[in-house]
């Protein structure tokens, strides 16, 4: 079923494209490819001698985008705008890592991660095409996922980050990989409708994950998961009053927890973070250095940026993953940074449209959950960078460095693309039936 090759004639394939690709994607494709090439080629000159790796990437990134598009659309009629935007953001991450840091190590690693990332995109496309939400395997997978989430407890020392699994050469964060899995499970669970018995198990599963994250002290991920559960629950079952009650209760508990967090062991940093958020310039805390440098980086960009490779964004702590948006602001400037935000919003809107056009509730929730997750992550981290919200340690999807984050986001994007391809095929089938089955001729 994945390989629903359209064994129809060439003409009908053209018709399909014409019907379903309503706006020509070529200008966007060319612009994205040109941007990728120009940036990498420019950066290859950064260190005085021409850097072969950057030149290679300058060719590979656009080529990969182009070939990827051809490959995917040969098999499945996915939404091309979404794919192109995703490729743009992924390339942006490599470009930024090359521009901000003097060594090419991070850029190289990130470029390497693009390969499994693309693979997960393909896997993601397959998921909604294979499943219709009622499979037993989803129910069976739930305990497996919980176990996966618990993995870090077996791999950490007291002082190390508690949400990572370190297997020597590879390290990954289960919470990032489990985001698409959770969306899948919840989409399946909440698409049954209003019957209490059906959805309570899944809601409890979701909360169990949140609790595990709480004990792992990954509060940013916990917040994301919690918002995801609420959103998918509301959209799936329509019980918005219940969700509001749950949100209010959570807000109350949260406030309570924050006020006593100083005394709970290991959570003292919450009070510090809130303090820093309220007044980063007071200089009271050592940790405020990060947000202070971040804000300075954001405002140093001016309208058009400092110039590729000329920024001091490397002075911001953890700029590759946490403060990558500040790096965007400083390297490319405010105009470009706003464009990146608009692109994330467009991605969300396109995803939501696929959710609205989906024919089954499961697919709709799948697309909705993924789109919601991606945009809420974006808003949280950009808010944290700009000090609108306290920093929550989540990553900007696609743009932040990090293999787990990239694979997780690509899986989710793949699922949305998969739903879009199903929608396109359904629409084609409908059109075929409504017209006298002759296809469309000119």
């Amino acid at each position: 079923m994945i390989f629903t090759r359209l064994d129809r004639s060439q003409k009908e394939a053209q018709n399909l494209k014409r019907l379903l690709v309503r706006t020509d994607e070529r200008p966007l494709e060319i612009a994205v490819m040109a941007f990728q090439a120009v940036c990498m080629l420019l950066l290859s000159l950064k260190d005085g001698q021409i850097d072969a790796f950057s030149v290679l990437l300058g060719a590979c990134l656009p080529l990969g985008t182009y070939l990827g598009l051809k490959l995917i659309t040969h098999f499945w009629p996915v939404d091309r705008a979404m794919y192109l935007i995703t490729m743009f953001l992924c390339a942006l991450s490599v470009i930024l890592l090359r521009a901000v840091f003097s060594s090419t190590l991070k850029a190289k690693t990130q470029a390497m991660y693009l390969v499994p990332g693309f693979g997960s995109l393909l896997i993601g496309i397959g998921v909604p095409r294979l499943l219709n939400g009622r499979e037993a395997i989803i129910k069976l997978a739930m305990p497996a996922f919980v176990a996966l989430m618990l993995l870090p407890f077996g791999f950490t020392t007291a002082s190390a980050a508690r949400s990572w699994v370190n297997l020597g050469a590879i390290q990954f964060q289960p919470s990032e990989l489990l985001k698409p899995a959770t969306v899948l499970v919840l989409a399946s669970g909440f698409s049954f409708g209003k019957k209490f018995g059906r959805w309570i198990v899944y809601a409890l599963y979701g909360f169990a994950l949140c609790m595990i994250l709480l004990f792992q002290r990954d509060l940013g991920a916990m917040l994301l998961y919690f918002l995801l559960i609420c959103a998918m629950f509301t959209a799936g079952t329509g019980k918005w009053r219940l969700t509001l009650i749950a949100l209010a209760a959570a807000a109350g508990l949260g406030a309570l927890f924050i006020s006593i967090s100083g005394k709970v062991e290991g959570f003292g940093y919450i009070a510090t973070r809130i303090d820093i958020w309220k007044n980063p310039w007071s200089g009271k805390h050592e940790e405020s250095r990060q947000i202070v440098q971040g804000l300075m980086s954001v405002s140093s960009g001016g309208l058009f940026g400092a110039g590729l490779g000329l920024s001091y964004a490397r002075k911001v702590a953890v700029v590759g993953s946490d403060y990558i948006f500040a790096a965007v602001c400083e390297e490319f400037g405010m105009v470009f940074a706003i464009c990146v935000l608009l692109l994330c919003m467009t991605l969300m809107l396109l995803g939501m449209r696929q959710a609205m056009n989906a024919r089954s509730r499961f697919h709709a929730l799948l697309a909705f959950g993924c789109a919601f997750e991606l945009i809420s992550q974006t808003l949280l981290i950009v808010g944290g960078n700009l000090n609108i919200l306290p920093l929550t340690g989540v990553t900007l999807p696609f743009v932040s460095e990090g293999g787990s984050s990239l694979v997780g986001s690509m899986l989710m994007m793949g699922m949305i693309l998969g739903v879009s391809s199903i929608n396109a095929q359904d629409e084609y089938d409908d059109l075929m039936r409504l017209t006298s089955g002759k296809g469309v001729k000119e």
Partner: protein
Amino acid sequence: MEVQTYEKLAVIMRYPLALAGVFIALRALYMAFKDGVRASRLRSGEAKYGAVAMFSVLPAERRGKAQRIPILRNGCVGSSGASDVRIKGMGLAGRQFDYEIRSGLMHISLIRSAGVSLVGKRANEEITSTIVLAPGEKLMVGRAVIGFEMLKTPRGANSPAGNKVYRLKGKQQ
């Protein structure tokens, strides 16, 4: 290349790159909205696409806006792929009824008559193998309430325009 030259280059390139970013963002937004507008126009079945009339399908227990399906030619309504207008998940038979639009009225000949009844003013009428529906009248089939409306400028039920339904504006490929 010395540092100075690179700096010059990078500083000049700021503007084209920002421009590229703006173009990408605006083009993506344009694509998103344009497709959306086209899709909704498609779904509402404008007369220029050759739609003659519209089915309106509503699940029996729900209120609100019905789903509208454009009628381009006479055909069959049912839940399976063999029917021209496919309505899934509402208890219709595989091929439920054939319809034909003549002189502004829909002539329905039932293939399966179980679960079919009229709604509204004609609710108590007996169901035979043929029903004639006027625009606005509704039929309950399975769990769906199906009605139809004529569009303003009907082109003729078997309009060959049905083949030219989805002409794209602007770019021809």
